[in-house]
């Protein structure tokens, strides 16, 4: 009763019956998190062990430690450097291009006068985000097909190229294909966040800028961009943290034997070499390294951003 008096009207719900009900409601979700998110962390042990798939569940604990042999296997593998290069290359270029393009798209969208047209553009450009990578990627493969696909038909008709370009069979085009298709799929969707941030800017700032004779470009540069800087920084932090995370579902759809030198990234390596060829220890070691680096990158980017721009995630 003392507690009730002290906390006033907030005292309701402190009785054990209510607490029991609440914890009961939290139970299914908590069990799910414990079983499907926390429990698999135990499996990370096999990154340091000589684990064979036939050993089953107990094998996670009973198999022998092999002194970082799995990690050594990854480093000496001739797939190691191409895989690191592809992961970083596709992500680095892709993120720079996508942040720049999405931001520009949002800014230009914001300059449209006709609101109906603006919302129509938005609705239609969201659409690819809701298609699966199998469908969107499959469509792109068809459009890029050397046997009379749209892109090659146009390119040859305009005499830009003489022979159809083998976009997916030639490794040198793979990064470009991955980056451009990734951008097209999420351009509209990514702009939502920036547009919402732009709509939060105080309109009197624009009025003042206009009265002072600021041009459109000056208004964008000196009012809009500084106004959405925190949002931009958050996107940059996420981009840096996700530097080692490729979109498996995207890459896997485009991947084939011919473009493998440019398309094998850490995530596909974990699947192709780890899961498919039963090198469970090696696959786990690769994804563990990736996760640890990703967390360091997240904290690092967050720290730097907090120091430089006062905007950080936590």
């Amino acid at each position, binding site marked *: 009763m003392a507690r009730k008096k002290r906390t006033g009207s907030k005292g309701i719900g402190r009785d054990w019956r209510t607490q029991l009900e609440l914890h009961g409601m*939290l139970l299914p979700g*908590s069990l799910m998190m414990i079983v499907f998110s926390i429990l698999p962390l135990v499996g990370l042990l*096999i990154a340091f062990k000589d684990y064979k798939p036939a050993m089953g569940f107990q094998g996670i604990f009973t198999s022998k430690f092999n002194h970082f042999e799995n990690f050594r296997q990854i480093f000496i593998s001739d797939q190691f450097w191409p895989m690191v290069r592809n992961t970083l290359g596709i992500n680095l270029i892709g993120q720079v291009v996508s942040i720049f393009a999405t931001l520009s798209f949002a800014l*230009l969208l914001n300059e449209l006068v006709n609101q109906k047209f603006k919302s129509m553009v938005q609705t239609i450009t969201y659409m690819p985000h809701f298609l699966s990578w*199998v469908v969107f990627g499959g469509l792109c493969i068809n459009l890029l097909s050397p046997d009379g696909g*749209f892109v090659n038909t146009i390119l040859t008709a305009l005499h830009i190229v003489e022979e159809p370009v083998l976009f997916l069979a030639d490794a040198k085009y793979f990064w470009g294909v991955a980056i451009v298709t990734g951008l097209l799929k999420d351009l*509209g969707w990514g702009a939502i966040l920036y547009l919402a941030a732009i709509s939060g800017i105080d309109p009197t700032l624009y009025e003042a800028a206009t009265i002072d004779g600021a041009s459109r470009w000056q208004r964008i540069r000196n009012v809009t961009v500084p106004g959405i800087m925190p949002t931009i920084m958050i996107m940059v932090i996420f981009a840096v943290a996700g530097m080692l995370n490729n979109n498996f*579902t995207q890459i896997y*759809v485009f991947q*084939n034997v011919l473009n493998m030198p440019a398309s094998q990234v850490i995530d596909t390596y974990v699947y192709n070499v780890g899961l498919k060829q039963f090198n469970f220890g090696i696959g786990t070691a690769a994804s563990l390294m990736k996760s640890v680096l990703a967390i360091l990158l997240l904290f690092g980017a967050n720290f730097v951003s907090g120091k430089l721009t006062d905007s950080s995630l936590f």
Partner: protein
Amino acid sequence: MVRSKSIGEKIFHGFNITLMVLLILVSLYPLYYAVINSMNTGYAIQRGFSLFLPADFTMESWRTVLSDPSMLGALGLTALRTAIVTVASTVVTTMFAYAYSRPYLRGKRFYSGLGVVSMYFSGGVIPFFLLISTLGLYNNFWVYIIPSLFGGYYNVIIYNTNFKALPDALFESAKVDGAKEFTIYWKIVMPLSKPVLAALCVFTAVGVWNDYSTTLYYTQSPQLKTLQYCILELVQSYNAADQLTSSAMSASASISELFSQNNNAVVNAKTIELAAMVLSAIPMIIMYPFAQKYFVQGVMLGSVKG
């Protein structure tokens, strides 16, 4: 303001509108291209894809896809999985988020700790595979349902923000009347949260419908193929054209029969693939504008205040 109608302004607007129209075309054309070519005959496609209208109109590919038992099986499985997971995970997640949002909940730190760890740390594909096989879910229909029953802590954050925005008086008067927590959640909070529910249900449904990696990682039997996975097989086998009649197709009786005939038939691998793609995209295209107006609300609330 006279300056704002200058030639420079007009050029800018002209450029901007042209660019936007171009982006609209880029967003719409790939799907349109699939629609027209799925209505093309196989031999027309052999000569080259149609760009604007089907060169040789036929609905034969659609008829084949919609009468192929393995394709229909995959469609049914995907629809069933999407429906069960969307409903069940929404109930589990909102129930969690409701209890989590109550200011009088004790031990909240435990739950937020659990949530944050589950959000940032992951064992990766292989430890998850070991768990799935230990639980007996490998190559089992339930692998599509059970691991997805909780929508994730990120969704909890979004629901939590929305539930906290509801007026306190509502909860207090219900508590004073002696209502049970579950009753408050089910009868008061859920009906008042339709916008965020609609938005997150659509997200969940889209994610489940579009997923193929669960099939790829954790199943192997042909009966457990999802629609997206069937399309993936068609896409990949077409890329390796000489492998058309290989194992990937053998599960699907009538389609593999088509491949064993020559590729110049009315229906061929390509037209089937395109029809299946369009078929699987239809539900998404119907669904997304419906909940579009709630997206910004739902997503923003979570990411700004979260």
